[in-house]
C-alpha cells in the first residue's frame, strides 16, 4: 500500500511539473514576480539587504508555491482529470502529497533563482546553509499545504485565486516581509503570529544574517506544524467531497 502511494505521489508530481509548472510562461512569471519586488524595494527606498532579502525570499516562496498550485487542483477538478486521480490505486493522502510536492518544487526553483539574483546584487555574508535549506523546505511545505487547502476548498479556478489572495496579501504586509513584525501595533503583531510567512521571514533572517539558532528552530517547528494542520484539513475536505 505504501509503495503504491509513493509511486503514485511521485507520478502525480512529475505529471504536474510537465503538464503545468515547467511551462515557459510559468517559469518566467515565477522569476519576474520576485524580481519586480526586488527592484520596487531597492529603487524606492534603498533598504538594508539584511532586512530585505529574507522578506523577498519568503515572498518568492509564498507566491511561487501557491500561485499555480491553487489553480492546478481546481482546474483538474473542473475538467474531470482529478477524478482520474481519485480512481487510481492510492490514498487521498498520496494524491495530495503529489500535488503539494509540485507546488514546493516550483516555489523552491523560483526562490533559488531569486536567492541567486539577491546574492549577485547585494552579496551574502555568513550564511547558515543548513538552516537556510531547512527553512526554505519547511516554508515551501507550509505554503504549498496552504495552496492545497485553498484549492480543495473551492470549486472554481477564480475562487481559488480569490481565496489564495485573501491569505497571501495580509501575510505579505503583516508577515515581516516589508515591515518588521516588532514595529507593528500590538493587535497586528498577534495577527502576524498566526501567519506562516512571519516564521519563514524570521528563520530566513537568522539563516542569512547568522542570527541566534534557538529562535529559528522554534520558527521551523511552527512551520512544520502549519504544514501538518493545513494538510490534514485538506485531506479531510477532499474526503468529505468524495463521500
Amino acid at each position: 500500500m505504501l509503495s503504491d502511494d509513493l509511486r503514485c505521489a511521485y507520478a502525480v508530481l512529475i505529471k504536474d511539473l510537465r503538464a503545468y509548472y515547467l511551462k515557459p510562461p510559468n517559469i518566467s512569471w515565477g522569476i519576474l514576480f520576485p524580481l519586480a519586488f526586488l527592484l520596487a524595494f531597492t529603487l524606492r527606498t534603498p533598504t538594508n539587504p539584511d532586512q530585505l532579502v529574507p522578506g523577498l525570499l519568503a515572498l518568492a516562496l509564498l507566491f511561487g508555491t501557491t500561485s499555480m498550485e491553487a489553480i492546478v487542483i481546481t482546474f483538474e477538478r473542473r475538467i474531470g482529470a482529478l477524478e482520474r486521480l481519485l480512481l487510481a490505486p492510492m490514498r487521498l493522502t498520496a494524491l495530495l502529497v503529489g500535488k503539494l510536492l509540485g507546488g514546493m518544487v516550483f516555489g523552491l526553483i523560483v526562490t533559488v533563482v531569486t536567492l541567486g539574483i539577491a546574492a549577485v546584487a547585494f552579496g551574502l555574508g555568513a550564511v547558515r546553509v543548513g538552516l537556510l535549506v531547512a527553512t526554505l523546505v519547511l516554508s515551501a511545505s507550509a505554503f504549498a499545504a496552504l495552496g492545497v487547502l485553498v484549492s480543495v476548498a473551492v470549486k472554481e479556478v477564480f475562487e481559488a485565486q480569490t481565496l489564495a489572495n485573501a491569505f497571501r496579501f495580509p501575510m505579505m504586509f503583516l508577515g515581516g516581509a516589508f515591515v518588521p513584525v516588532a514595529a507593528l501595533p500590538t493587535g497586528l503583531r498577534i495577527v502576524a503570529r498566526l501567519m506562516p510567512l512571519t516564521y519563514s521571514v524570521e528563520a530566513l533572517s537568522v539563516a542569512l544574517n547568522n542570527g541566534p539558532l534557538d529562535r529559528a528552530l522554534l520558527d521551523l517547528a511552527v512551520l512544520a506544524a502549519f504544514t501538518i494542520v493545513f494538510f490534514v484539513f485538506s485531506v479531510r475536505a477532499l474526503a468529505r467531497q468524495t463521500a
Partner: protein
Amino acid sequence: MDDAPFALRAVGLTKRYGSGETGLLAVDHIDFEVGHGEVFGFLGPNGAGKTTTIRMLTGLARPTGGSVSILGLDLARDLPRIKKQIGVVPENSNLYDELTAFDNLVFSMQLYGVPRRARAGRAEDLLARFRLREKRDVRFGRLSRGMRRALTIATALAHHPSLVFLDEPTTGLDVVSARSLRQMVAALRDQGVTVFLTTHYLEEAERLCDRIALMVGGRIVALDTVDGLKARSQGAAAIEITLESKDRRGVPEVRRLVGADLESLIAQAMSDARTEGRRVLALDTIRPNLEDVFVQLTGLNADVMRSEKSGQAK
C-alpha cells in the same frame, strides 16, 4: 480471473444525499450480479441513478447502505486493491490536455504500477489497436472528439483490468467512432474482460450486452437478458402507424404503440388520428423490440432517452 462466483455483486446498494424530507434517495436498495466475462448493460434515463451507482462501484462515492463485492473483494474494505483491477471510462474524456497521447498512457500505467520496462511497448500496442499511432506525440487537447474518447478507453485498459466500467462510451461520437468503439467492447468480451456499460441507447445495449438492468427512479425495474426482456413483451401487441405530415408537405410521422390488445391499440391509433385531423398513410403490426419493453416497464417514452443526448450514431 479470481475464484469469486461473480465479477461484481451489489446487495441492497443505496445512496441518499441529505437527510429528512429534503433528502434525495438517488439509488434505492438495488441488487444485481455481474458474471465474469459478461457485458452488463445499465440503462435508464437521466436522473435514474446510473452515474451514482457507477460512482459508488468505483469508489468515487460512499454508499449510504448495502454492500458491494468486486472480483471477490469487499468494496468497503479493499478499495485500493479493487482499484488496481478495474478500469473506468467516465462519461467525459478526462485525460490531460497538455500531455501527448503516449504520455497520457504511460502516466496511467505509472499510477497502476505497470513495470517501467513494459510501459512503452504496451502504450505503442494500445495506440496501434485504437488507430492512434500517428497521433502518438499529439497532445490530448488537440485530438478530435472521437480520438479523445478512444484514448480515454485505451488508458482505462492500459493496466489490463479484469473489470471495465464504461459510462456512456459512445455519447456524442460520429458514426465511425461509435461503431469502432462497439467493436472494441465486443473484443473485450472475447478476451474475457467483464464490462459494466451504462448507456442511454437501447440499440447499443441490445447489440452489445449479455444482460441488461433497467433503472428508473433509483430502482432496477427489470434485469434480464435481451431475449428475456423481449420475452416479457411476447404477450403484448405493438403497432406502427404512419400519419401524414402536419403541414401536408413535411415528413410523415411514424408512431409506435404497445399494449395488451391489438384491437384496442388500432382503435386508439385511429381515434388519435381523427382527433388530430390527420390521414393515416400506413398501419402495421410489429414485433415488440427492446424499446417497447423499456416503454412498458418504465412507463416512459423511449424518446426521453434519445432526446437526453445528442449526436448518437447508429
